[in-house]
């Protein structure tokens, strides 16, 4: 028997998709023209599935900082943070992050995935108890597998359920560690952080918030949902990524807690991998400076999220529970989702196809994300294309989708 026999179901699914020319994994970008436009198969497409929330991937200052550092320090560090891989840039970026969040200390990881993997697996020891939201990102689940703590899921965004589950531990020894996210990447909903912070206070638990999709997007200073919800003092650890709002690669964790820096010699995904190339560190630092200086980016991406969400909701699509820069369209089933996604690409709109088990509630989703650089016209163009395909496939009725863009404008909520 082949060692790959266990993947037979996946093989069959991918073969079926490729045979009909509908395999999302076959998509290749020939060129990326800007944060909002790319070329696929020789055809220009609008990008509505990149999580590039602030559109900083082509920011001139970020590019210049990266190019200069590339020439100055070379292509890579060729070593881990605990060996030869800590340069002045890594340390200064950590200081900049700590200052940005108003926290005592920050650690930079090589990816956002590794930030969760390293922080959670190192913090949660043998007698400890991790309480994770049921819709947590795969990096959180994988972190749990790497830790030796007990893992308990609580119902998605349900603080009462979290409290009930923590209470079931009674007086069992060990730390209680709650893990939640700012904006959830699949449906674009936010965690009820005030309620969760109240549970944390009442139970003496620690609280980790992953702001991967909310850094730069939420909060007056772009510090994420913790800032927007007014609970920053209750949050013990904020985790994030450089690969979304900061337009590059890498991850981080910040904390006020004394002892946090011990994780540098305890978190294996921090210790046993090469550190970020200095040129990447330079672009991230420049992007973070841009966020610190320009609050309009956050305002713009929130307004764009509202516009797309309202336009699609008004057309009759079933969406995630609240408007945010992640807008998920719920599909009736997997086959329609795949066909819908493919036809949209034909219409010049690229977004993400998300299928179970990567989605909550076994939903088939068309997951789109806007960024601060999308114009109103581009968003209306996407709404119109999604409506055309939706009507063609019978997902929405013709009547409601007649003037979606116009109605989106009328119904658009203010950014705040």
């Amino acid at each position: 028997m082949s060692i790959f026999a266990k993947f037979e179901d996946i093989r069959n699914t991918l073969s079926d998709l490729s045979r009909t020319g509908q395999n999302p994994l076959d998509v290749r970008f020939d060129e990326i023209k800007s944060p909002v436009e790319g070329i696929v198969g020789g055809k220009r497409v609008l990008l509505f599935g990149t999580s590039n929330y602030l559109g900083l991937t082509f920011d001139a200052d970020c590019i210049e900082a990266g190019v200069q550092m590339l020439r100055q320090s070379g292509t890579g560090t060729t070593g881990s943070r605990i060996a030869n891989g800590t340069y002045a840039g890594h340390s200064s970026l950590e200081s900049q992050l700590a200052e940005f969040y108003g926290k005592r200390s920050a650690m930079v990881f090589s990816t956002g995935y590794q930030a969760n993997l390293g922080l959670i697996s190192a913090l949660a020891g043998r007698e400890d108890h991790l309480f994770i939201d049921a819709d947590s990102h795969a990096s959180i689940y994988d972190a749990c597998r790497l830790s030796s703590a007990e893992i308990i899921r609580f119902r998605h965004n349900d603080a009462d359920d979290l409290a009930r589950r923590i209470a079931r531990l009674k007086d069992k020894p060990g730390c209680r560690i709650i893990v939640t996210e700012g904006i959830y990447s699949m449906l674009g909903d936010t965690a009820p952080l005030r309620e969760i912070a109240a549970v944390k206070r009442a139970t003496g638990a620690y609280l980790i918030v992953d702001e991967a999709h909310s850094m730069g997007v939420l909060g007056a200073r772009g510090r994420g949902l913790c800032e927007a919800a007014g609970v920053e003092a209750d949050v013990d650890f904020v985790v994030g990524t450089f690969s979304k709002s900061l337009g590059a690669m890498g991850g981080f964790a910040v904390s006020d807690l004394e002892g946090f820096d011990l994780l540098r010699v305890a978190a294996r995904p921090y210790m046993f991998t090469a550190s970020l190339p200095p040129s990447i560190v330079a672009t991230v630092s420049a992007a973070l400076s841009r966020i610190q200086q320009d609050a309009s980016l956050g305002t713009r991406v929130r307004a764009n999220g509202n516009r797309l969400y309202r336009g699609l909701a008004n057309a009759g699509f079933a969406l995630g529970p609240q408007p945010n820069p992640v807008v998920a369209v719920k599909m009736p089933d997997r086959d329609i989702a795949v066909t819908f996604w493919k036809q949209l690409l034909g219409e010049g709109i690229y977004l993400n196809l998300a299928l179970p088990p990567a989605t909550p509630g076994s939903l088939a989703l068309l997951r789109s994300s806007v960024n601060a650089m999308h114009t109103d016209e581009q968003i209306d163009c996407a709404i119109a294309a999604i409506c055309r395909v939706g009507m063609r496939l019978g997902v929405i009725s013709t009547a409601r989708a007649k003037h979606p863009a116009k109605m989106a404008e009328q119904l658009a909520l203010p950014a705040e």
Partner: protein
Amino acid sequence: MKCVRSGGKGKLAQLLDTIGAQIIQVLAGMVPSGAPITGETRIARDLGLDSVAIMDFVMELEERFDILIPLDQIADVETIRDLTKAIEVLVKDAA
């Protein structure tokens, strides 16, 4: 569990006797009707549940028995019988 706390040994024994049946009852509501479920049924392979569906099923069992079922403890569970044994231990521990 509520009955375990308030009712003493008799009720605990009664609960332990019905754990297998209750697991099958919860599971029956989550898989296509008509699929036969016995102690030997392999939860993932025979019922076609993906990893998230299995975790959701475990969450329902936590509610049913008012216990915590740590995900790391059910990693080796394959059949309904394995799961029944694991939950029996957890129910006794929580009593």
